[in-house]
């Protein structure tokens, strides 16, 4: 029983991996310059923010929740850090990052309190905070942009700099993924996230502080969105009020592609990374093979739907096989 479960899970990830390889092969056939070091580095750099935030979204979805406010949090955190840099040019990039993370954390705590403390349905709570946070971003910026020349070089280097040819977003994404891999697989609180998601009542009865776990998950999501926000603004060297509109959909899509079940309680970091890379390829590589950018959204949607439906089919098949085996 246990072996079959782990087999189907690794089968799923294997499937994703095969799909990514086939996709890359097709791209390479269409454009012989696709698989080059520079291209792969660009692709991964562009996927860094998505990867950082999908880790947070994975934890939220593990607890049967969803967070629609992440795009707005990216905008507000990026805007606050960019405005600060505009007025105090000499400020250290580390302070900017901490500031954005703090703003994101505050937004995350708001979401967490609404969901955990006041029992508001996650989709409704984060829908509301998404509107509020996006509106607040407009108000604090007065509708104006912070442009490239108003930012210090140190600030922009948060996203454009790197160590040994590996850009900062990739490094940060890898560090975050490793940290949270350890956190949710090998630490008590991390395991409790799974417990809360797979059976909230059982978690309550076995003494897991369910509400505190849910609050923690949304807070972490907010903090990671804040981090994503400062990288986003530094990377595009412009902060606007409508930064990252609709980005929440990409983050949720990457998480779902990575095999995190929306019903809660199941999902792995390894699958998540593959899902993020797949979405990153779809987001960034289509122009390279001369597919019109207008096709991008439709193709993305179809791949997401296909992935979700395949997941259901595979699960049904497994259940049928399990039943048949039991009959003999």
């Amino acid at each position, binding site marked *: 029983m246990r072996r079959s479960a782990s087999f189907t899970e690794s089968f799923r990830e294997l499937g994703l991996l095969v799909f990514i390889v086939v996709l890359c092969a097709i791209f390479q056939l269409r454009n012989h310059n696709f698989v080059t070091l520079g291209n792969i580095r660009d692709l991964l750099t562009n996927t860094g923010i998505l990867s950082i935030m999908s880790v947070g979204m994975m934890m939220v979805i593990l607890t049967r929740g969803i967070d629609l406010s992440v795009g707005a949090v990216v905008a507000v955190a990026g805007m606050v850090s960019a405005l600060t840099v505009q007025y105090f040019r000499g400020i250290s990039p580390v302070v900017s990052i901490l500031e954005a993370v703090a703003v994101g954390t505050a937004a995350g705590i708001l979401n967490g309190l609404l969901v955990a403390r006041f029992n*508001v349905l996650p*989709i*409704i709570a984060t829908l*509301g905070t998404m509107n509020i946070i996006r509106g607040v971003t*407009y108000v604090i910026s007065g509708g104006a942009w912070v442009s490239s020349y108003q930012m210090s070089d140190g600030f922009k280097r948060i996203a454009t700099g790197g160590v040994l040819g590996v850009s900062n977003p990739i490094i940060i994404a890898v560090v975050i993924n490793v940290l949270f891999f350890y956190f949710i697989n090998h630490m008590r609180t991390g395991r409790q996230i799974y417990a809360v998601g797979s059976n909230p009542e059982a978690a309550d009865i076995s003494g897991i502080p369910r509400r505190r776990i849910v609050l923690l998950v949304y807070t972490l999501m907010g903090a990671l969105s804040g981090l994503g926000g400062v990288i986003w603004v530094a990377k595009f060297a412009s902060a606007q009020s409508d930064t990252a509109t609709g980005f929440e959909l990409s983050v949720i899509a990457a998480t779902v592609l990575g095999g995190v079940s929306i019903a809660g309680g199941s999902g792995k970091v390894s699958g998540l990374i593959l899902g993020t890379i797949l979405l990153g390829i779809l987001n960034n590589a289509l122009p390279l093979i001369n597919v*019109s950018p207008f096709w991008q*959204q*439709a193709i993305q*949607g179809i791949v997401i739907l296909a992935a979700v439906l395949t997941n259901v089919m595979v699960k049904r098949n497994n259940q049928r096989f399990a039943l048949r085996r039991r009959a003999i």
Partner: protein
Amino acid sequence: MERSIRVERLWSWRTFFLQWEWLLVLIFIAVNIVNSTLSSYYFTADTFLQTPMTFLDMAFLVLPMTMVIILGNIDISVGSTVALSAVIMAVAYNAGLPMVLAVVLCLLVASACGFINGILMTRFKELSSVIVTLATMIIYRGIAYVILQDQAAGKFPKWYSALGWGSVGKVPIILIVFAICAVVFGLLLHKTSFGRKIYGMGSNLTASRYSGVRTDSIIMIVSVLTGLMAGFTALFLTSRMGSTRPNVAQGYELSVIAMVVLGGVSTSGGKGRIGGPLLAIFIIGFLNYGLGLVNVQAQVLLIIVGLLLILSVLVLNVRFRGRYQRSVPSAAKKVAAQEHPNESTP
């Protein structure tokens, strides 16, 4: 059986005035008082007849969304459905299709979008409606972009723009059509067995299925109705704007859900009436109008809608919890009275 139902429905002043809708009426009156202090020309028949023209196109979506949320589902693909059907209508008209047929095509495409949502939801019950409509939301909008790219399509005949701007006597056409749709949806939800089944499925889907309700076909009908109403929104929106682009109606789904929830429909399903969302449409619409009078940015409205959404859910939650806590001791007393009839006082 008959009698117990009648007892439950017993009418009293207290339950009548403790309804969520009265609070909404109060908010609506407050909004109007504030608006009237902003402009001395506010309280005229024209204001109340002409203003709804500016916000009613979105309101068509509120009607089916109320059903969807009472079912315990959610549909976030409605904005994309509006965009796709509007784009296809405009392109078909510019390609030489008569406008009447283009309008029919618009409604058909929108219904088809709803039909696809319904098929996915009923065939793949493991998937939550959020995920299904999230995927179709991206796909529908994506197809609209594939068709029209970054261009706009328009140049509609004159009678078509009269649809959005014209009026019969003093009453705008859109208000008349909306009123008819609202009455039809109200009757469907509250006076037919179809409506009762929706409530039943919202409170307990499994129990409904076991008691012989064709749950799949009800979900299909509601999905198609959602699509059809998205088609109406597309018609009136395009008519008012004069042209369409693939990015129209972005974020409509959020405003629509906010209106339904503000109207007192519980997101956990099975509770709510059509009147609340109808009031919510006019509250948010007139609020928007008033903010426009004093030149407040549209973005501030985002904050207000968000706050209203969260506050209304909070108040509803607290109210519900209060009733729940009160009902537990009384139920316990009842059980105790049945078990020990001698100890209870008559």
